[in-house]
């Protein structure tokens, strides 16, 4: 009875969290961008600036994460890192299985989609951090390092799953993934942040740390217009896929959250890990998949990642993972 009662209050709490999460500059800017597209406004962030904001965000995430690593004893990092790597291998497999079995996708499309769900969406990661802060939850600073770890394996597993189906060598595909600008900047930032430590990074905080959230708003404004375009393409993906695009993040997200709690992370940190695991990449993965798996249909994987799963996580997923973390941490 206590359990059910808790569950009920939990449910209502999730709605509150969801609403509190919704009414934030970050989420509302995303919504505003989507509206811009829907009302056919001519708003458009110039390409050069949109790309530069990406560069800024990834480098800044890296720097912040690096500082956190420099403060964390290595043995505290090992377990979360291993679990993150494991999740980066498991989740593309489960996504592949689901997409083949229930989604009716061919092998290449399923593998391409799996690569996206195995990797991570940097913006979902950031949104989950904002949500955790808003909810007053503490979290481990090294989560950004986990994000970097989570980006790569999923993509590689996805490409391996598609193999045989023609396409180039795996080696050159992996080189492309690792030197691709998004992962390169993230890892570069992590290394610089770790090497410099908190004191020296402090000097660049007024650029890389303090205005970060505002820059994220501007980025999401543009991402909203892009996501809204993807939502229009949903017919191509079909209803079955759209439902799976909401179900997979729930499963993966809860899995990630539970794993985080299990290895002793704080509820906030576990929820953030859950959001990462539940998210689907739409920056690093699409570029890699497009080159390595040209026959896969971007109309499927991009629409799922950016048109379905990203908004789902932003609005419902993240509060759900936070609530899950809270409940699990009390067990």
């Amino acid at each position, binding site marked *: 009875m206590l359990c059910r009662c808790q569950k009920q209050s939990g449910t209502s709490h999730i709605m509150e969290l969801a609403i509190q999460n919704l009414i934030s500059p970050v989420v509302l800017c995303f919504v505003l961008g989507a509206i811009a597209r829907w009302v056919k406004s001519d708003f458009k962030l110039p*390409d050069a600036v*949109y790309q530069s904001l*990406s560069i800024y965000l990834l480098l800044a995430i890296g720097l912040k994460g690096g500082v956190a690593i420099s403060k964390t004893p290595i043995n505290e990092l090992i377990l979360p890192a291993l679990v993150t790597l494991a999740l980066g291998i498991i989740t593309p497999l489960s996504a592949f299985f689901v997409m083949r079995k229930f989604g009716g996708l061919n092998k290449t499309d399923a593998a391409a989609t799996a690569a996206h769900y195995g990797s991570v969406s940097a913006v979902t990661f950031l949104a989950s951090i904002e949500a955790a802060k808003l909810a007053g939850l503490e979290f481990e600073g090294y989560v950004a390092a986990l994000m970097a770890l989570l980006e790569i394996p999923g993509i590689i597993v996805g490409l391996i799953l598609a193999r045989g189906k023609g396409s180039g060598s795996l080696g050159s595909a992996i080189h492309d993934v690792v030197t691709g600008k998004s992962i390169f900047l993230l890892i570069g930032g992590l290394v610089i942040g770790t090497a410099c430590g908190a004191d020296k990074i402090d000097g660049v905080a007024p650029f890389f740390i303090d205005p970060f959230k505002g820059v994220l708003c501007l980025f999401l404004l543009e991402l909203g217009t892009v996501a809204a375009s993807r939502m229009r*393409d949903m017919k191509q993906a079909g209803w079955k896929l759209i439902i799976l695009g909401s179900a997979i993040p729930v499963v993966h997200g809860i899995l990630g959250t539970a794993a985080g709690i299990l290895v002793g992370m704080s509820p906030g940190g576990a929820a953030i890990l859950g959001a990462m695991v539940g998210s689907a990449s739409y*920056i690093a993965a*699409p*570029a890699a998949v497009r*080159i390595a798996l040209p*026959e896969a249909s971007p109309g499927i994987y991009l629409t799922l990642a950016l048109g379905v799963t990203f908004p789902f996580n932003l609005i419902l997923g993240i509060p759900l993972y936070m609530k899950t973390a809270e409940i699990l941490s009390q067990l």
Partner: protein
Amino acid sequence: MLIQLKKVTIVAESLLKEGILEILKAQGSTGYTITACEGEGSKGIHASDFEGRNIQIDTIVSSEVGQLVLTAVSERYMKNYALIAYMNDVEVVREDKFK
């Protein structure tokens, strides 16, 4: 003083940049010009907005090289990627720059 050559133009999603430039070099082009652009065609979706929009690659070449480039590019990319390719006559100053 003016020599008749061809200008080959390829408009493609920007991810293909390196690959197309490799083809140009392999087929004997001595130079190229790249312009950023946007567009729409039969393939609606592009791989990644983070990677930038389309690119237009122009290269001034002899008629034979032009044929080779068009064939190589379309064989390698036309099926799966957003790409168009065409060429037209141009009269060029200082042909030695293009050999």
